[in-house]
């Protein structure tokens, strides 16, 4: 009984849903504030993302006449569950590396696709031509970035010859960060970082949600609480994915003494890099994105992979 309660607590409060949501929304504020400063604007106050979320929760949900209603309404929750589980597993492995199980890295990789999948499902179920266009773009984008991303994430796995997140973290605690000590991991880190930009659908890869082209694409028919859930999922992924990268490549998140500060700085640096890339580039076309990931990023990831096999 106690165990079930603890498991529920860790899923719902820490390090699961509530913790990820609060930090994610706060990270969303950092993104907005930094963007505003780059664009010579003032930017919103720190609680803006929270009141945005609660405002949307109180709004009316409009169901389009020709939508598949159940699928349309449940799609956001699929994404939310995926984002929560990704964050939960990552934090569990970071805080208690010993609890790591065989192949958890594969589980995280698969679960991290769920938010994008939810967008596709919800968009297709809404019955709007622009939403289906956006959903098809999202599908193409997943096809484009997922392959180099997986290859890049598996580079340290091949190097250490252990497929547990816990052992990657332990290895880094003993031997220093992956990406500063090994060339293969540095290359893989760069590839994974750019793929993450696409996974978060930020500029230059915000192709599925291009407002000026297809008007937010799959989200066009969403309103009220379902839209709030989608926004929340996106905010949670903005927290979970950089943590994933830090866990694999940059020594993990640790919370003892000076390491606490160091962990927060690592996350902030990656967040700022994401925002800078987002704000200094225009959007690409989907065919250009596909070509970029397959012809540039994939060979680069393969090079890193081979270097890891050799042991550099």
């Amino acid at each position: 009984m106690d165990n079930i309660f603890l498991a529920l607590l860790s899923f719902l409060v820490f390090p699961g849903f509530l913790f990820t949501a609060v930090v994610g929304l706060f990270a969303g504020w950092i993104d907005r504030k930094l963007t505003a400063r780059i664009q010579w604007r003032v930017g919103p106050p720190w609680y803006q993302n929270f009141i945005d979320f609660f405002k949307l929760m109180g709004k009316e949900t409009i169901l389009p006449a020709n939508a598949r209603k159940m699928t349309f309404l449940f799609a956001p929750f699929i994404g939310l569950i995926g984002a929560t589980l990704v964050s939960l597993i990552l934090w569990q492995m970071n805080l208690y590396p010993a609890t790591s199980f065989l192949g958890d890295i594969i589980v995280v990789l698969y679960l991290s696709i769920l938010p994008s999948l939810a967008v596709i499902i919800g968009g297709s179920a809404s019955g709007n031509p622009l939403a289906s266009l956006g959903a098809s773009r999202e599908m193409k984008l997943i096809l484009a970035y997922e392959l180099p991303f997986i290859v890049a994430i598996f580079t340290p796995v091949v190097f250490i010859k252990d497929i547990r997140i816990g052992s990657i973290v332990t290895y880094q605690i003993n031997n220093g960060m992956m990406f500063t000590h090994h060339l293969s991991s540095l290359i893989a880190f760069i590839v994974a970082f750019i793929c993450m930009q696409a996974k978060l659908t930020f500029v230059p890869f915000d192709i599925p949600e291009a407002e000026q082209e297809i008007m937010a694409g799959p989200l066009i028919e969403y309103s009220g609480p379902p839209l709030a859930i989608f926004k929340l999922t996106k905010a949670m992924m903005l927290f979970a994915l950089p943590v994933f990268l830090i866990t694999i490549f940059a020594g993990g998140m640790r919370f003892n003494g000076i390491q606490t500060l160091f962990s927060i700085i690592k996350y902030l640096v990656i967040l700022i890099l994401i925002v800078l890339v987002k704000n200094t580039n225009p959007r690409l076309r989907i065919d250009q994105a596909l070509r970029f990931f397959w012809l540039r990023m994939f060979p680069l990831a393969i090079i890193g992979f081979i270097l890891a096999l050799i042991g550099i």
Partner: protein
Amino acid sequence: MSQERELELYFGPQHLGMVGNFSITLKVEGDKILEASANPGWLHRGFEKLMEYRTWIQNFPMVCRINVVEPDSMEMVYAMAVEKLAGIEVPERANYIRTIVLELARLVSHLFGCWAYANMLGFDTVAQWAMYHRDLILDLFEELTGARVYHIYIWPGGVRRDLPEGFKDKVLNTLHTIGSCIPDYDSAFFNNRLFYERAKNIGKITREEAKRLGATGQILRATGVKYDIRKIEPYAVYDRVDFEVPTREDGDAYSRIWIVRDEMIQSVHIIMQCFEKMPRGEVYNKVPNPFKWRIPEGETYVRVESSRGELGLYLVSNGEDKPYRVHFRTPSYPHGLVILEKLLKNASIADVGNIMISLYVTAPEIDR
């Protein structure tokens, strides 16, 4: 089978990517556009007819509202036509002030164009910069004319009033602020690799086609033709200032936005020269009582170089206190209807806004 695969998409008037009340109906198959038809009729206000019912001076608040982005060239072309019909001379100083105002308006319009283009590509940083700089020039206009967008400053017989005290320094200061950001714009926007990928070879038009379809302005200059009314048929003081007409050879969206950038620099040079050469004196030759002002019978066609291309006005007077017929030749008409529909064929959906903005389509002036 192929009939079922076709989809009708509406790009505007309710669309985030659309600037102004304008719409394009697209027939698409997959990501490819089979056919596009533009509809500018959402903003028809019947200005040309309305102007036949108002006196020569009463028409000024109308004429500037035909184009929201750059109203000054509209005022200029109307004032020139009235002056030509009535035989009014313009004082030398007024001509210089007119040139300064027109070039400032060109800067406003071009910065607005940069905003629209960057915003269309999801590049909000440069968009916000351009909007900020545009606002600085609007502040200058507010001081000079009392209004930010619709100035009604250029007038038959000159300009409404002389430059305020210390205006020159303010203009030069603002231009210096904007000019010092040109390297930032260059590295962030015009030379950006991803922007190049996005704009190069998009909306390409050949020189012969551009000439045949009535293109002017950047679209014609991007194909390598040095066509600029300021050089061919100088008005105001454009024959007394030294400036270049930037051209490019490729005729695509990337060339057009680079011409916009180069023209902004030329505009700054023109403004500087005007301030140097400007004589003292009157800025306004008195016109008769506007309520009793009858202009002798006649007809005229005048043209100016607006920020988007050749802007012409055909004005007929039958000796009354009101115009008999007013007709504008606006640059967006051929650009926004004929050329846009032609370039959109076989383009991808992602490039609709891209092509539209690169043609500098200003919806209000298509259907007056």
